[in-house]
């Protein structure tokens, strides 16, 4: 998978924050405003119901945006998702690749440098690391911080998507640490104006990359903390 084709602005669903009916209504405008990837994530929702939601999302999520299914590879296969996002404790990447076939994205959540290295060795297309800041989606989980994000970014050559309490204002700092993109739940779905929120994320990402692309720096120097000089 070409790292440049890895989505940068990831929207993760959470039926406790926003119903699927509401999400489907917003989706065309969310995608138009700049969401690159939608992760179907709904822990506790039975598979039969999840499959119906997945089919609805599949109809609405068209290229260049991609639909990723969290954890359930069987549902990703059935709804013809563009890929699967595996939890840190989820299925092996190899199983996902074998079952999904070529041309699909396989990502994994990681919460440490060790897990990032293991996931990269498995052949993940991208990693999601967090929570970078404190977040209402994980109450009580201490922020892991920007330094930890940078360590994970430099631990592998796999693009890292940052998650956890990331607001548009925090995007520049996160991208300067070398993050390839950001993943958001409440920052978009609980915003007063979700469409405006997407635009704000998009603009923040495009601006900071316009004034010096930190991942280029990482690639040129081979990592090892040099991107910190870019601050």
């Amino acid at each position, binding site marked *: 998978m070409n790292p440049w084709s890895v989505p940068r602005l990831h929207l993760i669903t959470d039926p406790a924050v926003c119903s699927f009916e509401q999400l489907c209504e917003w989706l065309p405008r969310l995608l138009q405003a700049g969401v690159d990837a939608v992760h179907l994530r709904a822990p506790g929702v*039975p*598979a039969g*119901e999840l499959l119906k939601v997945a089919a609805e999302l599949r109809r609405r999520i068209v290229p260049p945006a991609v639909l990723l299914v969290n954890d*359930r*590879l069987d549902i990703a296969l059935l709804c013809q998702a563009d890929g699967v996002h595996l939890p840190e*404790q989820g299925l092996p990447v190899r199983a996902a690749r074998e*079952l999904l076939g070529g041309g699909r994205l396989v990502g994994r959540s990681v919460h440490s440098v060790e897990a990032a290295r293991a996931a990269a060795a498995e052949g993940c297309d991208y990693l999601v690391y967090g929570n970078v800041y404190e977040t209402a989606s994980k109450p009580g989980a201490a922020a892991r911080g920007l330094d930890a994000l940078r360590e994970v970014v430099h631990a592998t050559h796999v693009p890292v998507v940052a998650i956890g309490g990331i607001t548009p204002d925090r995007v520049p700092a996160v991208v300067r640490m070398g993050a390839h993109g950001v993943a958001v739940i409440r920052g978009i779905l609980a915003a007063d104006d979700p469409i405006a929120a997407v635009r704000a994320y998009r603009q923040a990402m495009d601006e900071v990359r316009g004034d010096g692309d930190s991942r280029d720096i990482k690639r040129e120097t081979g990592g090892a903390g040099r991107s910190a000089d870019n601050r």
Partner: protein
Amino acid sequence: MVSWRGTRLRDALRLYVITDRTLARGRPESEIARQAIAGGATAIQLRWKTGPLSEALRVGRELRELCSRERVLFVVNDRVDLALALEADGVHVGVTDLPVAETRRLVGDQLVVGFSPETLEQALEAEAAGADYLGVGPVYPTVTKPDAGPAVGLEHVQRIAAAVRIPVVGIGGITAENAGAVIRAGAVGVAVISAVVGADDVRLAAAQLRKVVDEALAERQ
């Protein structure tokens, strides 16, 4: 791998033991399964309701290896992807899980697909959609409440078993004392959790159940 679909499935459904960590009182699934198979279990189902999937994978690999060695049917509950990743012999879905037709599409024609219908209509639909067997229950209220009421589910088993061509397994509150009636109602076997997994002597409990099932099946011939 030889498919379990077809004629040998009936024999493999005689004593179907489903794992349950909370009832196992700290004994690992592989140990429970080993004892159950030694006692006469013909099928083992990995049922994973809580905890990380990585743990289900670890346990599932142990059960996969054990069941292959012992030539026992190995089924995974609900998660078709886990069944495929573990190279299980079958997968079992319920009414809120992935539909039977979609499950069949994912697993192809080699794996056994089981389904738990709640109604006769669902049973017939599942058979038409490609299910290989049905788990029908709860036959009895629950084994933890032996005095909880009459065996209202036997009639349900009888009705469904008479209406479908695929084998039916009774489930729910089944013990060595009442398993014979389930077979006489038309089931080819019984599925149990607590009667085996929760037993002090897993092997003995499985052996007693298996004996009752085999005797009832022999009478039916």
